[in-house]
């Protein structure tokens, strides 16, 4: 359904200057196509706009050597810039701040994004790769059987969950998790929260209250990798209101183009730490900018 960028640029570039340097006009013509490619890949409009501006500066005047076409040159500049933005300054995106046991990790996001599943996947990873003793607690008092869902996953992966006490509010559950994590000698405790809309003031205030009690070392925003233009609102609102330390993109096993990755990174400035690649408990990988960049460009 989507043409990839090279094909898209192929036709345009037949008409471009063939030697020397990329002219301002060449670049502008090419970047019109790049813009469409980014939007079709679900990059949020304001993010696409800024990205194009940055690339325009870099590409104008760039030398076109004999061995490559002007089209290939632009694709290369776009690709490199995408990787640079996606990677940011992070050396090791999979590293979590979990010193000072028990270290709290808060999981937040919209409804159905994959928080509960990701909580369990991460707990499994911390246990198996890092030898950490992990406690998981569900603060989701809204969704039917949300607590049972986390409890079942905990049993599947051999990670403890905080016993379910019906009628407790999320802040009380967070306090109990903290106590239990300290007394029980846990290295990490993970707080899975209910899904919430970023404009739901009541629920956003609730999760802010949880944050104030738990003082999380990491607050991870879990986002559906298939997200479209709404990525900009989600990223802005959650980061402004709660303050996030990183992003997890789920459903990257789908055939979505993953433009939300660029939007999230550009708007929050926070690293994308992991990607979810399936429903199974081991389907979690650290974020690789090169892979996602290629995917956004359809290459």
């Amino acid at each position: 359904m989507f043409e990839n960028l090279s094909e898209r640029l192929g036709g345009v570039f037949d008409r471009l200057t063939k030697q020397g340097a990329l002219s301002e006009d060449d670049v502008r013509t090419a970047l019109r196509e790049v813009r469409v490619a980014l939007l079709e890949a679900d990059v949020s409009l304001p993010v696409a706009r800024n990205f194009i501006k940055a690339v325009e500066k870099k590409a104008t005047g760039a030398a076109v050597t004999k061995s490559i076409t002007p089209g290939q040159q632009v694709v290369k500049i776009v690709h490199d810039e995408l990787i640079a933005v996606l990677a940011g300054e992070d050396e090791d995106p999979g590293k979590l701040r979990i010193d000072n046991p028990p270290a709290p990790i808060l999981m937040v996001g919209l409804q159905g994004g994959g928080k509960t599943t990701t909580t369990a996947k991460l707990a499994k990873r911390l246990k198996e790769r890092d030898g950490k003793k992990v406690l998981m607690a569900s603060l989701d008092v809204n969704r039917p059987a949300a607590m049972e869902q986390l409890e079942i996953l905990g049993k599947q992966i051999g990670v403890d969950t905080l016993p379910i006490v019906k009628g407790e509010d999320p802040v009380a559950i967070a306090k109990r998790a903290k106590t239990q994590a300290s007394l029980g000698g846990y290295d990490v405790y993970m707080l899975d929260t209910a899904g919430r809309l970023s404009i739901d003031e009541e629920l956003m205030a609730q999760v802010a209250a949880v944050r104030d009690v738990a003082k999380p070392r990491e607050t991870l925003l879990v986002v559906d990798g298939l997200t479209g233009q709404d990525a900009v609102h989600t990223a802005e609102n959650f980061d402004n209101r709660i303050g996030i330390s990183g992003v997890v993109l789920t459903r990257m096993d789908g055939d979505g183009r993953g433009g939300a990755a660029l939007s999230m990174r550009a708007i929050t400035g926070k690293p994308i730490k992991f990607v979810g690649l399936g429903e199974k408990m081991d389907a979690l990988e650290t974020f690789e900018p090169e892979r996602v960049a290629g995917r956004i460009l359809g290459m």
Partner: protein
Amino acid sequence: EIRRTLDDDMLEQLEELLIASDMGVDTALRVTANIAEGRFGKKLSVREIKELLAQEIARIMEPVARPLPLYPTKPQVVLVVGVNGSGKTTTIGKLASQFRAAGKKVVIAAGDTFRAAAVEQLQVWGERAGVPVMTAAQGSDPASLAFDAMTRAQAEGADLLMIDTAGRLQNRADLMEELAKIVRVIRKKDPNAPHNTLLVLDATTGQNALNQVEIFRKLADVSGLVMTKLDGTAKGGVLVALADKFGLPIHAIGVGEQIDDLAPFDPEEFAAALTGLDAG
């Protein structure tokens, strides 16, 4: 009121407004071109322009705004499908409640035998709606549950049988085949069933919704759409592209997590929200 000339700049701004709603570049271009026809160079107020846009969108959406059709067949089988987390289970709860309120006898089958606590979740919805939920053990074959549910719904003379399914991404051939198998098994009991196959789409989804509809329609005979989570900041503009391309009816929209948060799809309201006309 300030009037502005409908020129290239203005058209680009309008395109961007639509693109930001997830309409996609092609459809946004087409919609703006349509309203510009015969008006290029004219002076219009912002409100007039938004009204024109909204009218054009409502015009495209009018033919697909259709409630779930009810048939005299007993049981009418409604199969609910979609990618993970889109809102299938919740939508079944809401629909079951509406049908019950309309005096229908409803049975639900908890066909998601995969996800942790999917059954427990649907059982809560069944209680809320006052509708029995048929379940099977986690990990068991959903097709055989669907067969048993058909048998029970027929024996009990239920008006409607709603079948929940596990979330699946459309590029997973194995899971799509599992869905096709559920359909085959249902058809052994009634060759015309499922009478409705609803694809549940999440409003926050971008252009991938086009792939979702294309593949689910091909492999699971989708007969209609429901879009959830329109109570958020997502506008669901991709529905316009979908209407254009596939013409599938949109039966309802999800506007919250409570049992009554399911509304008919209203093209004019949708267009107003999408263009920002509702914000004044």
